[in-house]
């Protein structure tokens, strides 16, 4: 299950999806909106995706994880739109017979998402907003 959605994310649903009789380990990662970033008071994060390609890239990295580690099932769901403080923006769940594979594949997935999946985050903070990854320490000029 590799999806981009506007709906709130449901961790238990993903874990149920990856649960399998052959699995003894499930590793999950939940990314949540933090109330601060580089000294700014964050109000919310607002995510935008190129949804068809994002889902395709998520599935591709899932395939890559299956080649690298002995895993049973994997699910990744990324939310788009505004995500309030403490709410999840991304959930990854991976099941495997053994924990090392589950942990490594889960970690791999979140690192890859941050490198290659076409999803962008705008940080809305007290005093302004900024597209993360575009700044050089400061809000872009000309905004």
């Amino acid at each position, binding site marked *: 299950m590799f999806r981009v959605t506007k709906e709130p994310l449901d961790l238990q649903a993903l874990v149920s999806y990856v649960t399998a009789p052959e699995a003894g380990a499930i590793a999950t990662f939940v*990314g949540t909106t933090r109330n601060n970033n580089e000294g700014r008071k964050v109000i919310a994060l607002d*995510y*935008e*995706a*190129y949804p*068809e*390609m*994002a889902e*395709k890239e998520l599935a591709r990295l899932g395939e890559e994880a299956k080649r690298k580690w002995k895993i049973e099932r994997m699910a990744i769901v*990324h939310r788009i739109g505004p995500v309030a403080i403490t709410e999840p*923006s*991304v959930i990854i769940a991976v099941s495997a017979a053994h924990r090392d594979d589950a942990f490594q594949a889960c970690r791999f997935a*979140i690192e890859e*998402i*941050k*490198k*290659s*999946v*076409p*999803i*962008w*985050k*705008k940080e809305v903070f007290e005093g302004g907003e900024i*597209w*993360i*990854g*575009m700044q050089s320490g400061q809000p*872009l*000029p*000309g905004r």
Partner: protein
Amino acid sequence: MKVKVKFFAILRERAGAGEITREMKEGGTVADLWEALRKDYPRLAPVETRLLYAVNRNYVRPNHILKENDEVVFVPPVSGG
């Protein structure tokens, strides 16, 4: 020939559009299209950051040659998660 361009995130905001169709010469590359768009949309010009190029939902090299009806996306640095 015509290609479809989708803008996302900061490029969508700067172009003031989410999706456009643009005429271009046969044999043009995705990098050529970006240079043309920077002239069409002056607010795209100051974008100095490294962009990736995607055609029909796959990442491609800058010298990728476009075809009629291709869906082109210029991908600013991603920041999901």
